């Protein structure tokens, strides 16, 4: 897609102003799952279509449902650029997501970015995901 060239990027904003992760937010897939890689390379990052909590705003460790390359996939938010910074909650430069299946296992087998330490509190849910992570902050 030539639409997303570097010259054009200054002309209009894509999703950088979306500081909350909510419906219609575009996320960055940070694992090496096939579908995720393809989506990112094609310049069509996944879009949130549902957040699995009552607030409808995803924080670190929350599950989201995404539309990715014509499919519905679930993912875990592992990084967010929060508008309001909180003590001891890492603020990432991008909104990161790791794709998972229904049972909570990641689709890929490698994660490229550090994960937040608070994710380790949910060890029983994301044991596999935590074990393939290389680094925590």
């Amino acid at each position, binding site marked *: 897609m030539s639409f997303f060239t570097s010259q054009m990027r200054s002309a209009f904003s894509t999703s950088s102003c979306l500081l909350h992760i909510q419906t219609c937010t575009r996320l960055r897939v940070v694992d090496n799952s096939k579908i995720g890689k393809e989506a990112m390379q094609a310049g069509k990052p996944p879009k949130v279509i549902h957040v699995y909590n009552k607030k409808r705003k995803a924080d670190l460790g929350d599950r989201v449902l995404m539309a990715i390359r014509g499919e519905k996939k679930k993912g875990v938010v592992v990084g967010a650029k929060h508008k309001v910074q909180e*003590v001891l*909650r*890492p603020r990432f430069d991008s909104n990161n997501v790791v794709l998972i299946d229904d049972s909570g296992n990641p689709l890929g087998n490698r994660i490229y970015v*550090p994960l937040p330490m608070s994710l*380790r509190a949910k060890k029983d849910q994301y044991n596999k995901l935590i074990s393939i992570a290389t*680094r925590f902050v």
Partner: protein
Amino acid sequence: MASWSLTQRGLSRGLRLSASMHASYGRRMTSSLPEHLRKALAYSAMYPDLLPEPDLTRRNYVREMLERQDMLSRRRAIDIPEFYVGSYMSITVSDQNAPGKKNTFVGICIYRRNHGLRHQMALRNIVENEGIEMLYDLYSPIILEIKVLRLQKRLDDDLRYLRDALPEYSTVPWDMEPEPHREQGSVPVDETRVIMKPRPWTQRWERKELKGVKEWGLEDRFFKRAVEVSKPWEKYDLMKEYRCMVPLEDQYVVWKEVEEHRKTIEEEHKRSRRRKLLDA
């Protein structure tokens, strides 16, 4: 010490004496500031957290005194070294989730905010090509250690524009060793000027009068607009300036306590720090 004894007299007698004191100084020492003023300036940069909130409607002297006592007693329990926005630091905290129950973060201090026990600082670093920031309460008891890896200032007092600069400007090596610095004398200023990423940015940085940016990568129309919306008279607004500062007389109360604290506690901390360095 002569200047401090003068200050103490000023404190005890209130405004009247200090006014005449300033008047006499004003006449004699025009080229260089008197020592107590210079000291106050240095301390307010060194310990911005110890100053009370300048909003007059919210000030209370009993609260400020008790808050300061708490801050100084926390500083006695743990070594909180002198640092500035732009210094490279490493902070270790207790963390229930971390292996070994300890979590360390290394980064460059990009801003400090709030007064008193609410004082907070933010560190920024690039880890595995991902920019990460951590915010800390300076007086939180879960902080185990604060190390200053490189004591320095930058050209600006707020480095939040590093979020939109190229990543190499906010990268601090994770295994950096603390650099020794001279105990006495002025703090070195790192005069690095950064190159910005192409827009979109988190804020319109071209309107902020930043000194530490080399290449903006913007068209002329942005700067024209920045000039249009700028408020050049604001830097001359004497009362605006006055309203967001703690008056000098109130600062002396703080710095008098800090002076004693430095003499007793911080000297000891410094000695132990030097010993550690030598051992390593």
